[in-house]
C-alpha cells in the first residue's frame, strides 16, 4: 500500500485535526511553562513540523556531501 497524495477530503481532515490539537490546549488546564516558546500558539506543532523537515533535509545533505558511500566502500 503506497500512500497517495491526499484528496481534498484528506487535506480537510488533516487541517481539521491539526487545528483541533493546536486549539485544544487552550481549553485544558495549563501548568507547565518551560520557556519563552510556551507563549507561541501551537509551538509544538510548529516544532514537530519544522523539526521533521530539518532532520530530513540536513541529514540528506550531510549524507550527500559527506557520509553516504557505495556499499563496497570498505572492500
Amino acid at each position, binding site marked *: 500500500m503506497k*500512500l497517495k497524495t491526499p484528496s481534498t477530503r484528506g487535506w480537510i481532515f488533516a487541517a481539521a485535526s491539526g487545528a483541533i*490539537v493546536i486549539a485544544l490546549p487552550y481549553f485544558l488546564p495549563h501548568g507547565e511553562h518551560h520557556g519563552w516558546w510556551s507563549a507561541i500558539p501551537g509551538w509544538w506543532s510548529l516544532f*514537530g513540523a*519544522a*523539526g*521533521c*523537515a530539518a532532520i530530513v533535509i540536513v541529514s540528506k545533505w550531510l*549524507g550527500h556531501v559527506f557520509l*553516504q558511500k557505495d556499499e563496497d*566502500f570498505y572492500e
Partner: protein
Amino acid sequence: MSRFLASSTAARLLVVVTFVLLAGSMVAMAATEGGGHGGEHGRILAPVLHPDTFATDSWPPAAILVIGGVGILLLPSRIRGYAAVILSAITLWYVWNLPDGARLVVGVGGQDLTLLRVDRLSLVFGKIFSLIGIIAGIYALHQRDTRQQVAALLYNAGALGVTFAGDYLTLYVFWELMAVSSVVLIWARRNPESEAAGRRYILVHLVGGAVLLGGVLLHLDATGSIAFERFAPGEGGLAAWLILIGFCLNAAVPPLGPWLPDAYPRATVTGAIFCSALTTKTAVYTLIRGFTGWEILAVAGVVMALYGVVYAVLANDIRELLGYHIISQVGYMVAGVGIGTAMAVNGAAAHAVSHILYKALLFMGAGVVIHTTGREKLTELGGFWKRQKLVFGLYMIGAFSISGFPLWNGFISKSMVVAAAGELHWDWAFLLLMLASVGTFLHTGLKLPYGTWMGEDHGIRPKPAPVNMVVAMAVAAFFCTIMGVAPGLLYAHLPYEVHWDPWTAPHVMEAVQMLLFTFFVFYLFIPKLGGQPTISMDTDVLYRKPAPAVRAVFVHGVGAVFDGAHARVHALASRLAAAFRDPTDWIPGWPERVESDEPGYDEDRARLPLMLPFTLTLIAFGVIAGWRFLG
C-alpha cells in the same frame, strides 16, 4: 497548495523556520540569568544510595545463568530453549526477592571482592535484564543452535554480574564475559559479513576493556580501593577518565560507538534481541553508578540523541536503522546521568527499562521480517503488510512506545529526562532532546514500517512466522503498554522517590501536537525517505579503511619476515649439514673421498665418537653445577 507543500521550497522554508526558532531559543537561553548549560539553577545531584547493608550468603544472580548455561548442554537439544527460558524466569524470581542492602563479600588475593551489592539501582536493572532474558528466550525457542543458547545465557549472566558487582575487579570480569559471549551471537550467523563485523566488534570491546582495566589499576594505585563507587564530577584524575571512556565505549557514545550499527545488524535474528538489550544498558547502569552529575555526559547524551537520528535517515538496513536509534535513545539516558538530579537519574533508569522492552520489540519485528522474507534492506522490502498484520501491529506498538506516544512506556520515561533538563532551565538540552524525539518517530515509527511493510510492492510472499516469535513480541508489547497506562508500576521500582506525573494535559498535548505534525511532514517527504543502496561512513572509517594497510604490515609483513627467515635458516642448515657431513674434506692433503658404491665414510658411524665427548662434558658440567648449587 499540496504541490507547494510537497515542493523543496516549502521544505527549505521549514528548515529556515526551525533554525530561526532554535537560534532564538539559544539567544533567549543565554539572556536568561542562570539558564543554559552550566547554569546550576539549584541543581542538586541525586544522593548516593546508602541502604542499610548486611552480609548475606546469597549467591549473585549471575551464578544461576552461568551454571545453567553450562548445565543445559546436558539436556536434549529439543528442550534446551525451554530450559533457557525457565532459567531466566528463576533468575527474575531470585532477583525480585533479593533484599535491599544485601552484600556478599569474599576475600581473594588480599582484596575484598563484592560479588553482590543490592540496592534500588542494581535491583531495577537486574529485574529488567532478567525479564528480557525470558522474552528473548521465548523469541528464540524455535532455534536449535546450542552455541547461541549458551552464549545468550552467559551474556545475560555478564550483564547481571556487572549490575550487582560492588567492585571494579568483579565488574571487569563480567564486563569481558559480556564481550566474548555476545560476539558468538554475531558470528553465529555464519556469513563473511558477520565474521568480519564480529572480529571488529570483539577487537573494539577488548580495547575498551583494556582502557577500563587501566583506569581501575590506576584508581587502585591512587586510592588503594577497587570499590565501585561514584566519582564526584571532575574528580578522580586520569583513572576516572579511563574508566569513563571504557563505560562510554559500551554505551556507544560517539565517536566510540560505531561498533553498534556495524555489528548488531549482522547478528543472528534471535541474538540481536539480547544485544539490543544488554550491552548499552549495562553501560548506562555503570555510568549512573559511577558518573552521575558529570556535565560532559549531558552534552554527550544530547549529541548522541541527534547523531543517531541523522544516521537513521540514511540507513537502508532495517536493523542498522534500529541500531542507530539505540544510540539515539541511550543518548537520553546518558544525558540524564549528566544532568544528575534525582529526577534525571530516575528518568535514565526508567528509560533504560522502557527502552529494553520497546527496542527488543522493534528488533523482534525486524527479525520476523528477515526470518520470513530473507531480506533486510528497505530497498528490497515493501508491500506485504496485509500478510503480516499481527507482526506489523505489534511492531507499531514498539514504534509508538519509542516515539513517546501517550499510552506507551516511552511517554512516561523519556519525558522524565527531558523534564529534568527543563527544571534546570537547560533549554538547549530540553529543545534538542525534543527535536530528537521528532526524529525518532519519523524513522522508527514512520519510515521503517512504511518502507518495510507498506511502500512499493516487491511481490514478497513471506513464509509464516514461528508462533513463539509472535508470542514474544506480544509479551513485550504488553509490558510497553501496561507501563505506559499505569506508570506507577515502573516508578515504584526506580532508585529514588518519583515526583513526576506524565499524564497532565499540557504534557499530553505537547506530545500529540509534535507527533501529529511530524506525521504531516513525513507524508510530504515520503519520496525523500526511501532507502538507498548505500552505506554511511562513521568513525569506524578510522580503523576500517586502514585495516588492509595494517594487515599488510602487521600480518602479511610479519608473516613474510617469518617465512623468509624460515627459508634462510633452512638453507643455512642444509649447507652446514652438507659441510659437516665429512670433516675430513677440510684437512689439506687428505685423500679425496672416492664416490663409489663401496662402503666408505658413514656419518652415522662417526656420530658416536663425535657426540660422546660432548655428552660427557655436559654430564660433568651438570654434576658440578648441581654439587655447587646444593653445596
